[in-house]
């Protein structure tokens, strides 16, 4: 095949999926802001993406339903616990303002990844049209 989408789009689709996952984690932090004992979670985006890009070249084929994929292929990565700036009495470590900032940051970065992909697509499109 002349056009390989995986090569054309690079790392951005994976980054997009990771961003989406992270948005979910942060949304769950914000939803549980008043749940006693809830611990805020987040992921180390850079580490997971790096791991992804390194292992991406040689994904093992699964020929049997009992074959397990290594953890990094499931695109969830390891979730870490956030260290709170100020501890609260009920054991909840969610700090609204921090979670909101992270969520906003993540949303902007998601849009950035999306824009990169869109740029690649319009590049491909103009190559196909040859105008």
């Amino acid at each position, binding site marked *: 095949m002349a056009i390989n989408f995986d090569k054309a789009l690079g790392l951005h689709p994976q980054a997009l999926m990771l961003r989406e996952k992270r948005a*979910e984690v942060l949304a769950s932090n914000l*939803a549980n*802001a008043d749940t006693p004992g809830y611990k805020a979670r987040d992921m180390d985006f850079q580490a997971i993406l790096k791991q992804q890009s390194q292992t991406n070249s040689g994904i093992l084929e699964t020929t049997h339903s009992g074959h397990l994929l290594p953890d990094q292929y499931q695109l*969830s990565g390891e*979730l870490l616990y956030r260290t709170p700036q100020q501890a609260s009495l009920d054991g909840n470590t969610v700090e*609204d303002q921090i979670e909101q900032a992270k969520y906003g940051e993540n949303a902007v970065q998601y849009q950035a990844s999306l824009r990169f992909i869109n740029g690649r697509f319009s590049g491909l499109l103009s190559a196909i049209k040859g105008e």
Partner: protein
Amino acid sequence: MSSFNIFNIAGSGMNAQNLRLNLIASNISNANSVSSSIDETYKSRQPVFAAQLKDIIDQKNKTSGVDILGVVESQAPPVMEYSPNHPMANEQGYIFKPNVNTVEEMANMMSASRSYQNNVEVLNTAKELMMQTLRMGQ
């Protein structure tokens, strides 16, 4: 598609905060409901929240929404007041007022409404991002 999960999470958060607001409204509106015995007195009601751990245990996903475990009634004693002229006074001349602390409830209300707004904001942002994703490549 997995990102619909955000809508579930924010929705469960809004649901929980909505129940909390309802209970606060009930507490504040009944703050002055006087009765003539301890058993009949209105007791302050509070929701109990918990993270939805079922999905985490099942390893389906690692995020969780909010579960409402139930509503508990405050065990604080009602306020006893001696006012023999009150129509609801018992034989000893006492009336009983609910153990609702209106100042506490007002602070609670503000916290609940802020949390609700947070969840709405999360939902709006997620929706906006998904709409942009749907327009990808156009």
